[in-house]
């Protein structure tokens, strides 16, 4: 407390000293300024006077000069003016208050006998201060007179009213600052009082003493409270950092999952910057992670179709086309077909903060679509070709264009053959449709393989005979039985046996063998035909596939037979295999499980 008092006393002392020193310094400054001004004026006046000759002053302008002086004297500045000739005799004397009589001799002598401008100050017995300016006047190189001018120095009092205006102002502002400071402090402490501490009490409650000590105590409490708060904030920040790390970890986990996806993903933020792109998409775009992340969409995506898709999606915000956009990546994956989709991820207010672009491989879908399209085209072609023939041949006959009897016969035969071809084709298509329905259409029954064997041979025997071909049977003593649709199985075997006859030269041999294992029955058909080209073998069970070998093309066929056979074997959970050599012949092996023989 003593220390505080000493500080306050010291401050008070400095304020008082300051209040005294400031006006004193101001007074001194003013005085020096006034003396300087008087000296300048005196120099100027005496200089002017010394320019006029004494004679001139004596003769003509004496009175006017005196009048001028008396005007200046009225301003109480010029105390006296004496012009003395070379004999020190006073020529002109102007001294309204007879101050010249009080000029000390030493001043007078210095003025009269020294050369140049002489400036001397002196005080009278009454305490008034004067400055005497003296300057000799020369004519024809000879000193003819001396001008002495006395100017009065105003007698200023330090304790005058003007000197106290400034300290009074300073004092006023100090007092004002003290009063304002006091009330401002009170105001601050009042606000501190309102701050609630953790237990719900306010600082004022803790120390309601409404004095400086109380306020300081309040301030200390507040600072301690703030420190606690800061510690709490630090701990919260640590928590947040931990949450952020966790969230980053979760993000990375999510991105790892995205990278494993079998479709492309790009995530774009609100500034159109790519912040995630999975490896699938990177491969498609031929980019790396480093030249994609934190780049704009335009910089990352150079693919024209994809670029236009994204622009299109930006235009129709919120109403994206569910069908997406089909595109291809000729440079990185030229054989595949893709479809782009987009979606916007919005916040609670519905504002888009992430744009999601996905890329799906739709090659299989396109393949199925193409296969379906090809199938329809093939059926149309296969059906309309015999139909065209029937129509064309018939039209010419009806128009009477064919007059030759032989030709007419040929035409009728063609119409008949093509009608049969059409009917057979329709049967094949229906059969194919039935087999494609699969198990639903199959009528499972116990089928005797001897019945199958004889039925199939009977179906092709006539044609084989025409070509002088032998069909050999290789069968076990006891014919096995299998569970299946007998008509379907017969049809399957006839297709293979029929092909063996059709695509073999004359005089060939066909072997039809039946073998049995514990669970299976094996049908084996060998021929000595044209054989199948290696490149055709993977396709022979496809619908409408026909080899381009001349021996095959010379024979009529729809390309559906083996496709139907394969479907039937599949329905019976069997397997069909082919071995072939061009020019030597083929071997078709069909293995079918015996199945549940109790049926039927």
């Amino acid at each position, binding site marked *: 407390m003593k220390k505080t008092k000493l500080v306050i006393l010291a401050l008070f002392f400095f304020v008082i000293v300051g209040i005294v020193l400031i006006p004193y310094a101001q007074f001194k400054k003013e005085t020096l300024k006034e003396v300087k001004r008087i000296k300048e004026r005196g120099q100027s006046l005496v200089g002017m006077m010394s320019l006029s000759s004494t004679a001139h002053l004596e003769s003509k302008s004496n009175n006017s000069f005196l009048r001028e002086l008396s005007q200046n004297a009225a301003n109480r500045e010029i105390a006296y003016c004496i012009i003395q000739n070379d004999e020190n005799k006073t020529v002109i004397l102007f001294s309204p208050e007879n101050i010249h009589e009080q000029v000390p001799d030493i001043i007078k002598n210095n003025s009269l006998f020294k050369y140049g401008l002489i400036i001397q100050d002196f005080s009278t017995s009454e305490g008034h201060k004067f400055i005497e300016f003296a300057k000799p006047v020369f004519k024809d190189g000879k000193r003819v007179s001396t001008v002495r001018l006395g100017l009065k120095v105003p007698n200023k009092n330090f304790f005058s009213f003007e000197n106290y205006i400034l300290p009074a102002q300073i004092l006023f502002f100090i007092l004002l600052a003290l009063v304002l400071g006091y009330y401002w402090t009170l105001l601050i402490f009042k606000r501190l009082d309102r701050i609630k501490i953790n237990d719900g009490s306010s600082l004022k409650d803790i120390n309601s003493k409404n004095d400086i000590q109380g306020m300081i105590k309040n301030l200390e409490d507040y600072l301690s409270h703030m420190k606690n708060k800061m510690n709490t904030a630090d701990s919260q920040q640590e928590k947040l950092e931990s949450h952020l790390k966790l969230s980053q970890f979760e993000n990375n986990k999510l991105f790892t999952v995205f990278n494993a996806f079998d479709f492309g993903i790009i995530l774009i933020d609100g500034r159109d910057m790519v912040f995630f792109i999975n490896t699938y998409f990177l491969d498609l775009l031929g980019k790396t992670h480093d030249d994609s992340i934190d780049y704009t969409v335009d910089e990352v995506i150079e693919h024209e179709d994809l670029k236009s898709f994204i622009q299109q999606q930006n235009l129709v915000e919120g109403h994206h086309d569910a069908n997406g956009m089909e595109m291809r990546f000729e440079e990185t994956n030229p054989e595949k077909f893709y479809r782009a989709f987009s979606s916007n991820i919005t916040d609670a207010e519905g504002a888009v903060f992430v744009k999601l672009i996905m890329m799906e491989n739709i090659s299989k879908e396109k393949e199925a679509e193409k296969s379906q399209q090809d199938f329809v*085209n093939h059926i149309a072609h296969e059906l*309309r070709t015999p139909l065209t023939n029937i129509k064309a041949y018939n039209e010419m006959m009806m128009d009477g264009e064919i007059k030759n009897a032989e030709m007419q016969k040929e035409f009728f035969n063609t119409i008949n053959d093509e009608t049969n071809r059409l009917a057979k084709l329709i049967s094949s298509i229906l059969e194919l449709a039935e087999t494609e329905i699969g198990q639903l259409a199959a009528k499972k029954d116990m089928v005797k393989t001897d019945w199958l064997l004889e039925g199939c041979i009977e179906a092709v025997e006539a044609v084989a005979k025409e070509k002088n071909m032998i069909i050999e049977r290789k069968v076990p003593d006891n014919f096995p039985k299998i569970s299946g649709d007998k008509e379907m199985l017969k049809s399957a075997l006839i297709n293979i046996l029929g092909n063996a006859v059709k695509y073999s030269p004359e005089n060939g041999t066909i072997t039809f063998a039946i073998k049995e294992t514990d669970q299976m029955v094996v049908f084996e058909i060998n021929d000595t035909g044209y054989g199948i080209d290696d490149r055709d073998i993977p396709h022979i069970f496809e619908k409408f596939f026909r080899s381009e070998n001349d021996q095959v093309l010379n024979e009529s066929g729809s390309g559906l037979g083996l496709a139907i056979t394969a479907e039937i074997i599949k329905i019976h959970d069997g397997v069909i295999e082919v071995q072939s050599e061009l020019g030597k012949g083929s071997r078709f092996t069909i293995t079918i499980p015996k199945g549940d023989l109790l049926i039927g």
Partner: protein
Amino acid sequence: MDKGKTILIIDDDVHIRRILEIKFKLGGYHTLSAKNGEEGLEIINNQKPDAVISDLNMPRLNGDKLCRLTDPIKKERPFLTIIITARINPVEQQWISEMTDTMFMEKPFSPSKVVDAIDQYFEKKAF
């Protein structure tokens, strides 16, 4: 009446080739025939027919490829190509429209209409 023009018929179906040959011969045209696109292309290059009737779906070289291969030839030696197809789809219509002097006809077609189309082409050309 010999019109002095040769028509090439390309089709893998022997009966179609036969009926068109008879029809064109009756109409005063000479005919050439090929059973696939490959043979057809060779005849176009070597024997320079005045018009070509071609199936679309053929082994070895189909009608689509044949047209694309012969289109540049037509700039120097124009000739009409009639594509005979079982089923025309928009994609096919599009590429056919892009070819020079090429039209299509759907199966089952009338032989008289094919001959009429060829007659009209040559009449227009004569003007």
